[in-house]
């Protein structure tokens, strides 16, 4: 397959992903419920941080809460991408396709990554000023590319966790448990060093190193090492997702089942 043809196929797949997203999430719903919910969640955790730890607690929580918003689309909801094939009974078409099913799912998940990125940006520009953290808002805007990287690593994790869930109709359970586990273990709201078990689990989850990178930017410390660690964790989950979807596909062909059953 030539690079031109590959680019065309990728483009069609991405456009299909956006069409699917728009069908399930019309702009009116996104603007009136999805995005406001993200902002309110970020505000809630920031104010919770203030209630627990005063102004310093609010600063700590604000940086982490923006990252947690990324999990709404990339962990709790991204399971809809493979699930749609199951609901529609069209997975057998992906098996016969030119692109690998894993590639198709990754490309169709891009709207969810876009939603996460837009939500995070909105949270930064609204929650910071509302909670009297204007200076930190400017710093976080400068560090926004790190949040964008975290959106991708979180999506890779969400996609990997969705793979075994699809065949068990457990996408809602798996995705949300992953999201809550990330809330507890990624260091967004609970400072590292408080609970050893949470720290240990957090080392293999996305967002932890990305949040450390953002905190390093805020504190004026080196952040590149944390960014590389975040990319490594995301790459690991992406590889796992690739392996799992490939295994599911071969198993479906071998056993004559077409829908991850």
């Amino acid at each position, binding site marked *: 397959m030539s690079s031109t043809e590959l680019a065309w196929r990728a483009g069609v797949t991405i456009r299909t992903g956006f069409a699917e997203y728009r069908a399930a999430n019309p702009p009116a719903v996104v603007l009136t419920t999805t995005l406001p919910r993200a902002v309110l969640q970020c505000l809630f955790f920031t104010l919770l941080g203030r209630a627990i730890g005063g102004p310093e607690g609010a600063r700590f929580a604000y940086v982490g809460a923006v990252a947690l918003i990324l999990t709404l689309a990339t962990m709790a909801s991204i399971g809809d991408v493979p699930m749609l094939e199951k609901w529609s009974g069209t997975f057998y078409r992906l098996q016969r396709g030119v692109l690998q099913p894993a590639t198709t799912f990754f490309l169709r998940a891009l709207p969810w990554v876009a939603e996460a990125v837009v939500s995070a940006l909105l949270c930064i520009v609204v929650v910071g000023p509302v909670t009297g953290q204007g200076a930190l808002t400017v710093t976080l805007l400068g560090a926004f590319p790190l949040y964008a990287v975290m959106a991708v690593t979180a999506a890779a994790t969400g996609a990997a966790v969705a793979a075994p869930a699809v065949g068990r109709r457990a996408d809602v359970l798996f995705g949300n448990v992953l999201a809550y586990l990330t809330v507890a273990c990624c260091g967004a709201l609970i400072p590292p060093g408080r*609970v050893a078990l949470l720290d240990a689990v957090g080392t293999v989850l996305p967002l932890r190193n990305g949040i450390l990178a953002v905190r390093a930017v805020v504190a004026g410390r080196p952040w590149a090492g944390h960014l590389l660690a975040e990319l490594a964790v995301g790459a690991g989950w992406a590889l796992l997702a690739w392996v799992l979807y490939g295994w599911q596909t071969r198993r479906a062909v071998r056993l004559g089942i077409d829908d991850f059953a």
Partner: protein
Amino acid sequence: MSAERWLVTAEVVGTSMRAQWADMRTSPLAYLLGVVQPLVFLLVTLTPQTDPPAAEGTRAAFGVLLTAFWGSTVWSAAGILRRERMQGTLARTLTSVRDPRLVVLGKSFGSSLVAVALVTATVAGTLALLRQPVRLDGGGWLLLGLALVVLSGTGVGLLLGSLFVLSRHGPQLSSALMYPVYLLGGMLVPPDLVPGWLGWPSWGISLRWLQQYLVAAAGGRLDMPALLAAGALTAGYAVAGAWLFRRVTDLARRQATVELY
């Protein structure tokens, strides 16, 4: 109302409760919102603090209980009528001999009972795991408060359930309704931390008064104004819900959209 009518009413409500419990056993949301969410919220609230005193542990415990309860109530309210639609029983319920509001009332009550039980058990277990001291004086008054929590959830379930009859975007609506109450309900985020112009809606949220009442009761003090406010609001929700449900279902039947979503 004659004795026979009371018996039939009780039978309809009781059967609806049992049907709701059967649905909840297979629903991941019941465990997500009844176990995972309160566990994570309690960790996030208590572990950043160093040796929080019993008073703070008590405040956090009831705050998390009510916060998780609200989340569970909102999702249950959407799920009740959505499942009726999916199971093809909504139209039959609406056109049956008995008042359809009894079915929604029974299911909401059943859902609230399970939510309170699950969340209370999770909170108690997590506090034990963290070895967090709490103060729980005023046993009878506490039980009264918890009973009012269940009734409040029932009333809200009836009120919110009406909204979900007319919308196909129930999950998005539920998602959007969670955080305004988390923020304004005075449960985990004290009302004085919310910007002044946003503070007034909390006066109409029964959970705010329940939080105030339960924390006072746990400390051995009876806060009668808070109890009365919570009771009045609960009754208001039930009356408004009963009225709105009838109006909305009549509208859906006129528009022939009862089975569409």
